[in-house]
């Protein structure tokens, strides 16, 4: 190499050390990675939560990008922001630092903004000419229809009821999900060209398929039938079931519940029935549940809201008998396995009516005669591809075994749509590559600002006891932005330039675009500082082959 000409008295050329490739000292190399954030991992609908929060953090134009990213997987952000049980927040890493990010409230903010500003869903693909029937217009069916129509299929949704939405309409009360919100998000899907046939019950699926030549069918009929339990009841006793009561109210009826209402069960349906009873004027709404509060399947926030509204709870109790204006309640005790056992101690309580909220079952009669579909224990069994034993018949949502929620149903609907698409194309489903989870201890939380969570305000109590107005209010723009920015971007680079700064060997180079960096292996000595000081766990050390 030719010696550079140096000025007088200068003995060593500036930066001439670069000819010494000190990267050769290394035994491990720094490598950029993308890890799965726990929030998205826990989302039953499969939302890329950290990614859409990242867009939302920019505010303004970022909100629309964030919303577009959500509807890639889930066409119901405004519904989600109200009824989703948000397991994303339960597993959010920020929960280990102060409080989890209010993901659900940001999602609601974005969903509401989209409705307000009239953002429309992405355009559909060119028609494939394939015809798919979706039975049931609940969240599972509508989510599947959305993804199927986007993939270019011709979709017909057949719904027994007079309005779409399934339990989002006939189960979840208005004070938790205003119908204007539901209608707006359903309409957006229909606007893509989904054919919705209302008031049409599919009774004989085999016959329908034979007559109308659908290429594939998705059974998304949910679980509509309130489970009954045998309770000795006098002839004048007034026993109803919760789904019928809630359905009636939505249909404009005013069920006769009386002044003192006992609700039997411990799930969300029980809570909704009791809160509804209060709003209908019941002076006393009592939830009777055979286990303890901790073991209640209902969500704590809803139990709290119910308590605030004056709903009373009686734990570890069963209803033994029902008379015209009283019930006999028996005290239970938990055994070693945590199962409630009767004690024989009973008590008579005043009650004008009893509302049973003991879970729902599916009416599977439409599948009669289709032998290959496994209907064991009253649910439709599928393979992980969501297909039943009968090729071309898929199932999703509450009608299948597993967790029952709007979010699970929406996730099922999307997966079913993808699998139907692949099946129609005669392809084998591509396996999902597993991604390492971005655990809390992979983060360097020093770098995040101290930021307590912004909580959503709730409607005044008096209005909650007498009206069906929405209880939980939304975040305003400032709070939503603040909340989004509490996200730590677990496992994905957040463009903080820290790696570029902390390398003692200047071996991290910025490639120009925000968040695009590379390690210059000529000089990376493998100290690991960049990994230790990356806030979000997006770099790892990989051993060199020596």
């Amino acid at each position, binding site marked *: 190499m030719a010696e550079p000409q140096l000025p007088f008295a200068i003995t060593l050329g500036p930066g001439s050390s670069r000819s010494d490739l000190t990267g050769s000292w290394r035994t491990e190399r720094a490598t950029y990675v993308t890890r799965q954030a726990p929030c998205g991992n826990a989302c039953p609908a499969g939302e890329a939560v950290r990614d859409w929060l990242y867009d939302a953090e920019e505010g303004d134009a970022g909100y629309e990008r964030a919303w577009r990213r959500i509807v890639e997987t889930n066409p119901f952000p405004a519904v989600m922001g109200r009824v989703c049980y948000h397991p994303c927040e339960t597993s959010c890493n920020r929960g280990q630092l102060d409080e989890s990010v209010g993901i659900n409230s940001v999602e609601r903010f974005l969903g509401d903004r989209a409705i307000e500003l009239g953002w429309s869903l992405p355009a559909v693909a060119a028609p494939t000419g394939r015809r798919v029937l979706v039975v049931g217009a609940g969240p599972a069916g509508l989510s599947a229809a959305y993804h199927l129509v986007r993939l270019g299929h011709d979709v017909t949704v057949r719904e027994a009821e007079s309005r779409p939405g399934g339990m989002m309409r006939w189960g979840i009360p208005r004070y938790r999900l205003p119908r204007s919100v539901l209608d707006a998000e359903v309409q957006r899907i229909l606007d893509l060209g989904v054919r919705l046939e209302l008031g049409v019950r599919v009774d004989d699926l085999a016959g329908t398929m034979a007559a109308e030549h659908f290429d594939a069918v998705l059974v998304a009929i949910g679980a509509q039938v309130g489970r009954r339990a045998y309770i000795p009841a006098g002839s004048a006793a007034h026993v109803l079931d919760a789904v019928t009561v809630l359905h009636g109210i939505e249909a404009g009826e005013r069920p006769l519940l009386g002044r003192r209402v006992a609700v039997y069960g411990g799930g969300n349906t029980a809570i909704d029935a009791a809160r509804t009873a209060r709003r209908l004027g019941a002076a006393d709404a009592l939830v009777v549940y055979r286990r303890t509060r901790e073991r209640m399947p209902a969500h704590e926030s809803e139990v709290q809201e119910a308590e605030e509204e004056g709903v009373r709870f009686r734990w570890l109790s069963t209803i033994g008998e029902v008379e015209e204006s009283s019930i006999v309640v028996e005290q239970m005790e938990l055994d070693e396995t945590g199962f409630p056992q009767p004690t024989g101690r009973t008590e008579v309580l005043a009650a004008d009516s009893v509302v049973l909220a003991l879970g729902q079952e599916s009416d599977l009669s439409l599948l009669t005669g289709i032998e290959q579909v496994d209907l064991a224990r009253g649910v439709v069994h599928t393979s992980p591809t969501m297909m039943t034993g009968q090729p071309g018949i898929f199932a999703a949502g509450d009608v299948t075994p597993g967790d029952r929620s709007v979010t699970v149903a929406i996730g099922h609907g999307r997966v079913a749509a993808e699998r139907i698409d692949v099946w129609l194309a005669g392809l084998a489903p591509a396996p999902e590559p597993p991604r390492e989870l971005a655990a809390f201890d992979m983060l360097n939380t020093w*770098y995040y600002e101290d930021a307590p969570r912004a909580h959503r305000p709730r409607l005044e109590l008096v209005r909650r006891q007498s009206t069906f107005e929405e209880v939980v209010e939304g975040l305003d723009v400032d709070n939503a932005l603040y909340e989004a920015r509490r*996200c730590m*971007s677990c496992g994905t680079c957040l*463009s*903080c330039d820290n790696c570029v700064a902390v390398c003692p060997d200047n071996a991290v180079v910025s490639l120009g675009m925000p968040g695009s960096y590379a390690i210059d292996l*000529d000089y990376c000595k493998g*100290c690991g500082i960049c990994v230790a000081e990356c806030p979000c766990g997006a770099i790892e050390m990989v051993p060199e082959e020596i």
Partner: protein
Amino acid sequence: MTTTDLKLYQIGTFAAGNRLLDPDERSVQADPGRANAITSGHRACQGCGEALGARFVLDAAIRAAEGNIVTANATGCLEVFSTPYPESAWQLAWVHSLFGNVAAVASGIAAALKAQGREHIRVVAQAGDGGTVDIGLGCLSGMFERNDDVLFVCYDNQGYMNTGVQRSGATPPAARTATTKPVGVEPGNVFGQGKDLPRIAMAHEIPYVATATVADLRDLERKVEKAMSVHGARYLHVLVPCPLGWASASKDTIRLARLATQSGLFPVFEAEHGVVTATTPIRQRVPVEDYLTLQGRFAHLFGEPGRPDVVARIQAGADRNIVRYGLAAENEVVPHG
């Protein structure tokens, strides 16, 4: 309704950059056009805090002086690892002095520039803690007393690292070095004040004295910028962990600097004309053990039987700093375990 501070920027100014902030609100190190005063290919150990600290300081100084800068460097790791003949990692005008006379060399450069009418060229002197608090102290005190127009930066790695980790006047009590063995009733370095050079500098009532670490880049850069905005003698004391001398993991360099501040062992403050004008309060207070146990040079204080009495004395020193400089954060919860 919950009131919240709406000016939240996720990582704020804790990290070097932040896509949510305007480019001019980001650090010099996040600037793709930074000077890289000391560039790749230098032979500092893996994870060297001194190499990092020198680049942080000089890049900020170069920006502040718009490139009109010359630096004199005492003998020590920084000089040795940056200039193994025939190479140099420096990308600014740089001259090597002796171990003990860098302050005098820098004063001379400043005087020469003044004589030439080229006072827009700024002078920075740099030395390790040995070259500053021990052998270089006489020259440095003179530079302070004459108020020569030099920014003197001490990269404190708490020992004579270049020659094999001998004790300096800045080595902390109980630390193991090649000359303070971890044996006897008082293992490691002796207890005492050592030479607290920031306070010695303050006693000279020079215009500006500041301490900083490689763990708080934005604070360090701000202090360099401030120092460069002033003329006369200025002193910047930067804590730079040394994986070799401290027997710590190379990845822990910045973490250790952070723990030094968050335990109270290394107070971060500024002083003007002999008066403390600002301190950086502790954000997440930690017991000194959190800092000490990551370093092999304190290993003899832990394990069985260990020396909890010595650890308690070190803690007492940290607590004294916290009181002396008012470092306690508001509403602080002290996690003493």
